[in-house]
């Protein structure tokens, strides 16, 4: 079994490492945590993409690609994530494990060095980010924000979150707002970058065959010169326990299929609550699996849609139902979704439903140990929330959580906002 270790390497810099020989690759990530705010979201989202354009030693894309190709096609990707009300920006790297190189050369130390170089020593002009790179990456970020509308399923989820949390930081999009992108200059981005480096919590994560102590040494070397000037607090997430009277938002677009998303508050239950396993079981019973009430009734029994499912945003205390339906069926689908939640509140479950939901949840937590990417996301998220529970520990809790507790969780859930993306009139 793999071992998970956590060490503070420098002030406000923490490494979580998982030592295992079962993968062919190693995964390494460096993540800066910033509070999610309208004013800074866009520039924070831009920074990893700007850094990824070039460093002092590798000033352009081609020289960077050449360096990565030399490391057996390693990948270093800019990442921008939203975890609760923290915006997490940095790099996610995947590299061939040292055991599989053709000439026996070690990849990890060089890969970490390259990632540290990208984070700490960017290519600059006149003491700030290169104006050309800034202009191009601003254009790319604008494209990325505007392109969110292209994937209607995700777009409808983003929109319901934006609407229901319009008075909370959580309503700010992961990539920030278009107008704020326009206003960024090479100098303003540089100033924010310096502030992030000096004052943000930096979370490091490694999974692969190298021992924890060795990884500590490699990363300490890779991050030499990181300015540390105080601060480092992990941004806090405010949880609103329950909804007022539900709001409805409709939008029209030239689409073939309607998208219905419903945002619920979980009664204040989050990943940090003792009731969290009950909420997980409740979500699985309601709409989290192919044995769930939503799948079996909205899709299979009434043939209203191809997909209807629910998912949790576990650090913010939200549950989202997402479904694609014919425009004329939206009322029917919405009524049925509410009726199924009501059935959960009544505890209307057959034993096989409970067993199916429980087994599914345990299994999906345990298979996380087989995926470097999913494990990384878990541990970074836990670090943001200040939690230390492992996937195995939550799986154990899922084995014993009672149906009554899941019913109580269902009763705590309240509908906040309904969003419907419909077609154009006529």
């Amino acid at each position: 079994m793999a071992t998970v270790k956590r060490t503070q390497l420098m002030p406000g810099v923490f490494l979580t490492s998982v030592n295992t020989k079962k993968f062919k690759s190693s995964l390494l990530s460096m993540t800066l945590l910033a509070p999610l705010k309208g004013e800074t979201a866009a520039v924070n989202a831009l920074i990893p993409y700007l850094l990824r354009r070039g460093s002092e030693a590798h000033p352009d894309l081609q020289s960077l690609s050449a360096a990565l190709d030399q490391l057996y096609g390693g990948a270093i990707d800019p990442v921008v994530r939203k975890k609760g009300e923290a915006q997490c920006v940095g790099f996610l790297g995947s590299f061939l494990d040292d055991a599989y190189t053709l000439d026996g050369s070690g990849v990890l130390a060089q890969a970490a060095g390259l990632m540290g170089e990208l984070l700490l020593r960017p290519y600059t002009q006149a003491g700030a980010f290169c104006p050309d790179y800034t202009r191009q990456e601003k254009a790319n970020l604008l494209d990325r924000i505007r392109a969110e509308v292209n994937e209607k399923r995700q777009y409808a989820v983003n929109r319901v979150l934006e609407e229901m949390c319009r008075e909370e930081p959580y309503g700010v999009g992961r990539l920030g707002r278009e107008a704020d992108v326009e206003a960024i200059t090479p100098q303003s981005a540089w100033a924010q970058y310096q502030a992030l480096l000096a004052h943000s919590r930096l979370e490091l994560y490694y999974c692969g065959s190298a021992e924890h102590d060795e990884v500590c040494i490699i990363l300490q070397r890779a991050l030499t010169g990181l300015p540390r000037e105080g601060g480092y607090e992990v941004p806090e997430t405010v949880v609103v326990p329950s909804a007022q009277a539900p709001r409805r938002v409709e939008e029209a677009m030239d689409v073939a299929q309607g998208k219905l998303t419903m945002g619920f508050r979980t009664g204040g239950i989050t990943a940090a609550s003792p009731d969290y396993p009950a909420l997980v079981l409740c979500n699985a019973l309601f709409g989290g699996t192919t044995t769930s009430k939503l799948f079996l009734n909205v899709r299979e029994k009434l043939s209203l849609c191809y997909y209807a499912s629910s998912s949790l945003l576990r650090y913010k205390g939200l549950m989202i139902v997402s479904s694609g339906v014919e425009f004329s069926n939206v009322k029917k689908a919405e009524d049925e979704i509410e009726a199924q939640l009501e059935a959960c509140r009544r505890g209307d479950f057959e034993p096989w439903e409970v067993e199916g939901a429980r087994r599914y949840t345990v299994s999906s937590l345990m298979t996380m140990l087989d995926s470097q990417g999913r494990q990384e996301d878990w541990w970074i998220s836990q670090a943001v929330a200040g939690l230390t529970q492992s996937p195995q520990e939550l799986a154990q809790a899922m084995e014993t959580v009672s149906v009554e507790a899941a019913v109580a969780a269902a009763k705590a859930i309240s509908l906040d906002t309904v969003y419907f993306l419909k077609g154009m009139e006529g």
Partner: protein
Amino acid sequence: MEEKKYSRIGERMFHTVLPNGLHIYVSPKPDFQKSYAFFATNYGGMDMRFQLDGKWLDTPAGVAHFLEHKTFDTEDGNALQDLAANGASPNAFTSTALTGYYFESTEKFEENLKILLSFVSIPYYTQESVDKEQGIIGQEIRMGDDEPDTQVFYGMLEGLYAHNPVKENIAGTVESIAQITADTLNLCHKAFYDPGNMVLCVAGDVDPERVAAIAQEILPKEGHAPVARDYGPTETEKAAQSLWEKEMAVSTPIFQLGFKDTPPEQGEAWLRWELLGDLACEALLGTSSPLYARLYNEGLVNEAFSYGCEAYPGAAFLCAGGESRDPEAVRDAVLAEAERIGRDGVDEGLFQRLKRAAYGSMVRGLNSFENICVSQSTAHFNGYSYLTFPEVFETISKEDVEGCIRRVVTKEKTALAVIRPKGGAV
């Protein structure tokens, strides 16, 4: 079972063939929590015309996919629920030339394997359930109608091919699936869901001999040889139309470029064609190529750019696509670069780096059980072993790559598909 070792990449593969003609492959993965089983038939969206019991039959577009949905139905209910009740995550997909059913689970592997083999091999299609499924699949098709990436890819195929059914929408159309009856499904099940036309691939901490014994116990004792199919007259070397266009509610033009090649022979030649095609893409327009750096700097492509190659019976092509404000300019730049490489060749240093990078990426890909099983199943249907890729890869020279680019990336073999923003913008 016969065991083959691939020591350089740290893999083993067991193989056997049952008296009914079913080939079984098992990849032992002792350190993992989960096991994964993939049961596939050599039958996909393009197999619409075939010979059964001496007669040629024509079936509507979308049958293979429809069959995939309905195959989960059993006399006692639904296998999806049976597997999910055991905590397994079951699913299935239909691609152009293959339909695969799979599950991953952390417990009760043998029981789950029996369920999988049993529901896929025993047809149970009623007219009532077929009628009901029209609604669900109708919604799936509508969802695809709103997905620009799906639409643009089919647009490119429409551009490349005059009649090869590779270009048919795998899910069919609302009109074509309306013609499907329970009889159609029974007929196609008889033709294609025969052990002689199928493969079982398993990865996980399992006993290979037990896998073979269970397959022997559950599946029919006899099988027949794969049926003959007809993909229409041989395609010409040229693209059927050079430009395909459509308007949708998107933020920026989305494009896909296709370059038509002569399909490879079955066997190792097929694997070699795929490896060569990937390397040719990398050298011509991959993220390490001089062309990509130029296009990226000019803002003509962004990180959404991706590329690859695909081969099917009677159809093979290289392709590249993404978002661009000027897709025609990207096409022209790619053709000009291909001409330059045809004349001056690929830089030797770049070629060596690309090979190293491609090797590393393929080995990293072996982390995924799904990748191993799907790749080996596809390989089996095309007459080679997937894990031989390092040896075949080594035989590919710089001249081979240059020859491929010279042969395939020419104006008359090129089709460009573009989705433009409706009314100029969203």
